[in-house]
């Protein structure tokens, strides 16, 4: 290596790092960037101190109206919750089935550029429509009902799952793929035996994660008439006498979402690490089933 011919000043300039902008200046800039839009927004929304003062009391009135909840027609609530779960399930299945091939088409290490770039663009375009907006558009051809909700959630899931899965595929170790191609494997075989075994656990855990999100999304789709528990909550909140029933629907929704989350996240951890998680739930499961030993330890020498 040769040292370039530089004047002492230039050498000094290279050796000494640039002085940082004073932290005080940065702090001021950040403060202005945050505070000014905030004040603009507060003024724009007409949030007055009086409104802020009144809000807790109003929320308290609603809370005392909703609780204690009234579980009188719990059958209907359960039916609607089940419908929400079904919508989320079909949506997730649609998303998983269709996003799987698309994610290979969008991954730059598998697909050629001319295919990957448009696929990516299409996926991010799908993703830009929130589920609710997809639902109100889809209601026009498909009518009110859970079918429309499932389609809306499915479409949105294709966009998100496609993106996440293609990132997983791009992140796999290239070694096995090279080995297969040098042994004469076709592109199909490279994908099947080089990529799928590496990427599949993460992709499946993304599917489960999407199911958790979709449960939440399908819980609100009822707002626009696309099925599920949402309509129950909204409809009952509009009449004061029905508030206890709305409270029951809300509590049931929270319970179902928490249960699905707990089950799904313990399965996800099991898929990713190959071992039961350390959470309360899976410890309970192990205590019940008694299956505790991971099978792989026997092979160690």
């Amino acid at each position, binding site marked *: 290596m040769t040292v370039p011919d530089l004047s002492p000043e230039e050498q000094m300039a290279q050796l000494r790092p640039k002085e940082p902008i004073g932290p005080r200046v940065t702090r001021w800039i950040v403060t202005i960037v945050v505070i000014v839009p905030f004040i603009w927004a507060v003024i724009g*929304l007409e949030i007055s101190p009086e409104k802020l003062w009144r809000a807790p009391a109003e929320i308290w009135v609603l809370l005392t109206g909703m609780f204690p909840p009234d579980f009188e027609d719990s059958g209907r609530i359960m039916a609607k919750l089940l419908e929400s779960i079904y919508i989320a399930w079909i949506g997730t299945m649609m998303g998983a089935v269709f996003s799987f091939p698309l994610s290979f088409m969008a991954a730059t290490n598998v697909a050629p550029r001319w295919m990957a770039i448009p696929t990516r663009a299409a996926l991010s375009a799908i993703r830009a429509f929130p589920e609710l907006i997809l639902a109100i558009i889809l209601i026009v051809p498909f009518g009110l009902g859970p079918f429309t909700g499932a389609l809306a959630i499915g479409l949105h899931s294709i966009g998100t799952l496609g993106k996440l899965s293609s990132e997983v595929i791009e992140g796999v170790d290239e070694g096995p793929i090279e080995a297969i191609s040098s042994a004469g494997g076709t592109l199909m075989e490279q994908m099947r035996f080089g990529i799928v075994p590496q990427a599949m656990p993460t992709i499946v855990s993304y599917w489960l994660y999407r199911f958790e999100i979709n449960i939440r999304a399908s819980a*609100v789709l009822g*707002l626009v008439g696309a099925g599920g528990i949402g309509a129950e909550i909204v409809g009952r909140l509009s009449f004061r006498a029905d508030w206890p029933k709305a409270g029951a629907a*809300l509590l049931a929704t929270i319970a179902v979402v928490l249960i699905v989350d707990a089950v799904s996240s313990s399965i996800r951890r099991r898929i990713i690490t190959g071992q039961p998680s350390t959470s309360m739930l899976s410890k309970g499961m192990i205590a019940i089933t008694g299956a505790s030993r991971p099978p792989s330890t026997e092979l160690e020498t």
Partner: protein
Amino acid sequence: MTLLAPETQTRPVEPPRAATYLLPLFVGIAATGLIGFSGPIGPIWGTLVGLVTFGVFAWAGVTRHWIDAIILVVGGILGLSFFNGVIAARTGPIDFKLALLAAVGWAVYGAATGFVVYRHRLEYRPSIIGLQALSWGGGATIALFTATAMGVLAPLNARQISAGEIQELTIGLFVVTSLAAAAIGLGANLSFATKLISLFAGGVVLVLTVMAYNEIQFSTAAIATQLGRIGEIADDFWPPVWKWPKSLGQPDTFNIVRPFIETFQIAIVGATIGNILALPLAFYASRMTAPSNVAYRIAKGILNVVRTIPDLVWGIFFATAVGFGNPFAGALAMIMFSMSIMAKLLSETVDAIDIGPLEAGRASGASHSEVIQYAAFPQVRPNYVAYALYIFELNIRASVVIGFVGAGGIGRLLNERRNFFQWDQVMAIVIVIFVSVLLIEWLSIWARRKLV
């Protein structure tokens, strides 16, 4: 671990040929099935289900012992007779409570199958019997509930009940319930017996999909027809109309601008306050920096519940509380939304920080808040900034739709135009939302790349 000496490795005993015991079994099943269409429904179907399960167990190599066959058949007769009795004695439509009660019968049968697995797989604890009962009972509950929805057993209305029109049990109901209960329950049996968890997973996935498919009346035919008349549908939406009169008799104006700005304002207020509120919560919700175990549990619990409630439900809640159509409600909802996500992300980051500075701070006598301020927060500051940007992006997306529930912003306008069936105006709003969501996403990616 040492390998076994070659001479001690013995050849496994060859299993007997399948046909020798499967043939009589299938003949028995077929005969019972034929009688089942005329005879007493509970015991006959109980025998049938017991024999089928025994057949599957024999095929999977769990058991071939005649005692197990008797256990299964007796369990089946008891369980299904109970199930039949509950359903036949009902005085109203099949609701969730009745379905649960009837599923107790299936749970009894599940316990019998669990007992058989427990007899032959010594490594399991007796609790496997309870788990098996749960999976059969759970499968039956869902099945019964869906069977009513599918029309196998149509729900009765009040008039029919008062007139005494209780429906007879149908073979169809039994078939559907048994199949669904069996897919989940038998799947669990087999995956316990053979330790192949994928069998159980496959069963659950299959049953859920089939049921959901029926329940929500999924129809590929409808998709095909509607795709065929896509031109007609597009006529409603296209071309988008950007200007319309605010009320009758007034000139056309751009009415999108004001709600659009309002959406941004909701997102800004929500993200700012939510991010600030999340800071203390995040430090309480991490084991690393929580002052006590109780505080940690409480903070974690609050976060879990807040995160469980979808943003739109928060929107409805606050809109009901502070008034419909009030953007203030939207801002409140966005505060809860941002706070829960930020606190979760940040607390997970705090879990992974270097403990050294914290210990140094404590050792030199710093108070708890000083430790957090000078030792913990500086370690996560870059993450905090990156998360804040991400949450702002999420907030824009979420505040677009929050107006649907009467919480202000562009969603309210969208809902209003939709209620007037002005699809071309809806299209214009959708385009605005689409473009702004894309722009915000790109901006946010660009900014994060610059910062991190």
